[in-house]
C-alpha cells in the first residue's frame, strides 16, 4: 500500500466508477459522501451475500459538507433569495443512511451517529446491542466523511497552528461492513471495542490492558498494532500504548494511508480485515489491536481477530 503525499494539505478519495453501482442520473445528484457510502455499503452486502440487512447504521463526523457549504454560500451570497432546495435536503446528516435504505428498499432500523471522531464507533456499539438481542441479524455498519470545499481549510488552518502540528493531510472516505453474531463465512471476528471521552496518558495503557484481559488476551497475543498517529502533540497517547507492547509487535500508522477524517478508524478496521485475510487463506497474523484518539480526547480501542 502506498502512503499519501504528506506535503498536500488535503487528499481526495480515489473514487470508483460509480456507474457500476448507482444509476448515472441518481449519481449526478449525489455528493461524494453519499456516493462513497452507498457504494461501500453495497460492496459489503455483495461480499456477505445479503440483499436485505436488518439494520443500517451510519457514522459521519461532519455529514454532508459539500451540500451544506453549497446551501450556506447560496444563502449568504444572495441574501436568502434563490436558495437551492436540493442542497438543503442533501445537507441533512442522515442522507447517506437514507440513500442506502432507499436503494435497497430497506424498511429496517436506520440510525446515524454524528459524534466527531467517535461516530463510527457509536454505530458499531449500536450494532453490538442489536446483535445481543437478535444474534442472527445481519447489520450494515459504516463510517463516511467527505472533504467538502471550504470548511476543511479552516479546520486545517487551526490544526496547522498547533505545535507540533499534525503531518497528516485532511482526507475523506467510506468504510462499511456487514456484521452478525453468526460466524457463517465470516472473515474476521470483531472481538471487542471500548471508548471513552477523557483519560490521562498515564492511564491509557491500563485501559487497553484491561480490555485485552477481559477478552482472555495479553499484550503478547497482539501481533499488530494499528495506530492513529499524526505527529501532533497528542501522539504521546500512542507512544504510551505502544510502549506497553513487546518490541517486535508490528506497528502500522493508518493515517499515513487514509489521511485524517472523523471516521477514518473505519479504514483501520478495513485494513485489519485485509491483514487477517479471508477464511481458508494463510495469514501469520492472529490478533490486531486498533487504537485511535483525537486531540487527547475521544479514545477508542478495537480488537480484531482471525476467525
Amino acid at each position: 500500500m502506498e502512503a499519501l503525499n504528506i506535503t498536500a494539505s488535503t487528499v481526495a478519495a480515489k473514487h470508483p466508477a460509480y456507474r457500476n453501482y448507482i444509476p448515472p442520473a441518481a449519481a449526478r445528484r449525489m455528493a461524494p459522501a453519499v456516493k462513497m457510502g452507498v457504494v461501500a455499503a453495497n460492496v459489503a452486502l455483495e461480499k456477505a451475500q445479503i440483499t436485505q440487512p436488518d439494520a443500517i447504521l451510519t457514522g459521519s463526523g461532519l455529514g454532508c459538507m459539500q451540500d451544506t457549504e453549497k446551501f450556506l454560500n447560496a444563502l449568504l451570497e444572495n441574501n436568502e433569495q434563490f436558495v437551492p432546495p436540493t442542497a438543503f435536503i442533501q445537507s441533512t446528516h442522515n442522507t447517506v443512511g437514507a440513500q442506502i435504505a432507499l436503494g435497497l428498499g430497506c424498511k429496517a432500523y436506520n440510525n446515524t451517529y454524528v459524534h466527531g471522531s467517535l461516530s463510527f464507533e457509536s454505530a458499531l456499539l449500536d450494532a453490538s446491542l442489536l446483535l445481543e438481542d437478535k444474534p442472527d441479524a445481519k447489520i450494515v455498519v459504516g463510517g463516511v466523511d467527505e472533504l467538502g470545499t471550504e470548511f476543511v481549510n479552516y479546520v486545517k488552518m487551526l490544526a496547522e497552528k498547533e505545535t507540533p502540528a499534525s503531518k497528516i493531510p485532511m482526507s475523506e472516505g467510506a468504510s462499511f461492513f456487514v456484521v452478525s453474531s453468526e460466524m457463517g463465512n465470516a472473515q474476521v471476528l470483531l472481538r471487542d471495542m471500548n471508548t471513552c471521552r477523557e483519560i490521562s496518558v498515564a492511564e491509557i495503557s491500563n485501559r487497553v490492558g484491561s480490555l485485552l484481559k477481559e477478552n482472555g488476551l495479553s499484550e503478547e497475543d497482539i501481533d499488530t498494532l494499528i495506530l492513529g498517529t499524526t505527529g501532533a502533540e497528542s501522539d504521546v497517547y500512542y507512544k504510551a500504548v505502544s510502549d506497553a507492547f513487546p518490541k517486535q509487535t508490528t506497528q502500522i500508522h493508518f493515517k499515513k494511508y487514509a489521511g485524517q477524517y472523523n471516521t477514518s478508524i473505519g479504514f483501520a478496521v478495513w485494513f485489519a480485515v485485509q491483514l487477517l485475510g479471508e477464511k481458508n487463506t494463510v495469514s501469520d497474523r492472529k490478533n490486531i489491536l486498533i487504537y485511535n484518539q483525537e486531540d487527547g480526547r475521544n479514545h477508542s480501542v478495537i480488537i480484531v481477530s482471525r476467525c
Partner: protein
Amino acid sequence: MSERIAITGIGIVSALGTGVAANRERLLHSESGLSLLQKVESTYQNKIVVGEVTATNQELAQTLNLPTKHNYTRTALLGCIAAKEAVKQAGIEDIKEFKTGLVSATTVGGMDQTERYFRQFATNPDTHRYISSHHAGDSTEKIADQLQISEFTTTISTACSSAANAIMLGARLIKAGKLDRVVVGGTDALSKFTLNGFKSLLLLSDDHCRPFDANRDGLNLGEAAAYLVLESEKAAKGKQILGYVSGYGNANDAHHQTASSENGEGAFLAMQKALQIAGLKPSQIDYVNAHGTATPNNDLSESVALQRIFGENIPDFGSTKSFTGHTLAAAGAVEAVFSIVALQEQQLFANLNFTEPMPETGLVPVQTLQKKNLQYVLSNSFGFGGNCTSLIFSK
C-alpha cells in the same frame, strides 16, 4: 420488557418558556408560544411565524456562568440548560455514583454561529473559536462537560426523529446493562440555514400551523432543547419516578428522501414495533402525541398510518407543534416531556387551530384541554430520509 426504564428527571427550554413548570402552565392554558421571528438575523424577521426561545444567547450564557469568550453555540446553550434541569430534577448530586452516559440529538449543530462567521473564518482570528463548535457532536460534548459525564457519550442526527432515536438508544443501553443511567434528548437552535431550507421546500406556513386540519398549509419552525434522565430500576430505587419508557420502534419508510409514503408505511411499522416491545395491544394506548407537523403530506400520511394501526378505534390524538413549532432534532424529546406532563396531569392537550377534518380520513384531533385517565401515551417523530420513530411512555 425485562428491565423497566424509569424516567426520573425532565428538563426543557422551548417557545413556551424555560423549565418544565413554565411549559406545563402554558400547555394547561392552551397558550401557544408561536410569534413572528425576532432574533435570527434574517430577511424574514417579523415576517414568518416561529417558535422562538425568548432568552438571548447572552442571557443563556449568564445562566451557565460562562466566560465572555466562550464558544457555546445557541444549540449548546439551550441543550446545557435543559439537560441541567433534568439532572437536577432527578436529584442527582454525584453523577459518577452510577455509570451515566449521554445521548443527545441535533440537526443544525453549531450552524447558528457558523452561518454568522463563515465569511470571516479566513480573516478574523476572533471568530476561530466557532470553527470547532460547528460539528454536531460539539453541543453534546459541552453538555457532557457541564454535567461532568465521562462515560459513553454520543450524538444522533436523523433529521426530525433524532431525539426520539436518542431516547430509544438510551433505553436500549440501560436494558443491555451497558449503563445504569443515561441523559437523553435533543437540542436545535433556529438558524437562517434551516429557515431558508424549509422555506425553499415550500414547507412553511405563513400563519400559525394547523395540524390535521383540512386547510393546513405547512409548518412553523421552532427551537428548543429537552432532556430526560433514564435510569435502571437499580439506580432509580427509592426515587420519585415520573414515568417509564415502555416501548420504542424505528423503521424506514424507504419511499422518498423528504416525502412520506401515501400509506404511511414507515410510521405504521415504527408504531407496530413500539407496541410489540411494550407488549401492548393498540387498544391500550390512551393518547397519541402525533408528529403532526401540519404539512399536507405528513399529516395525511400519519393519519393513514394511525388508521392502519388502530382501525376504527383511533385513540385521542393531537399535535403540540401548534404550541412550540417544529423543533426538529429536539421535537422527539420536547414531546416526550409533554407526554410525561400529560401522564402527570391526566390531561390531553389541545391541538390548536383545528377547524375542519381532512376529507381523506375525517379524523378529528383533541381540540381543547381534556381530563382523561391516562396510562399509556404513544409519541411519534418522523424525519427526512424516511426515518420514523415511535415511543410509548407509561405512568
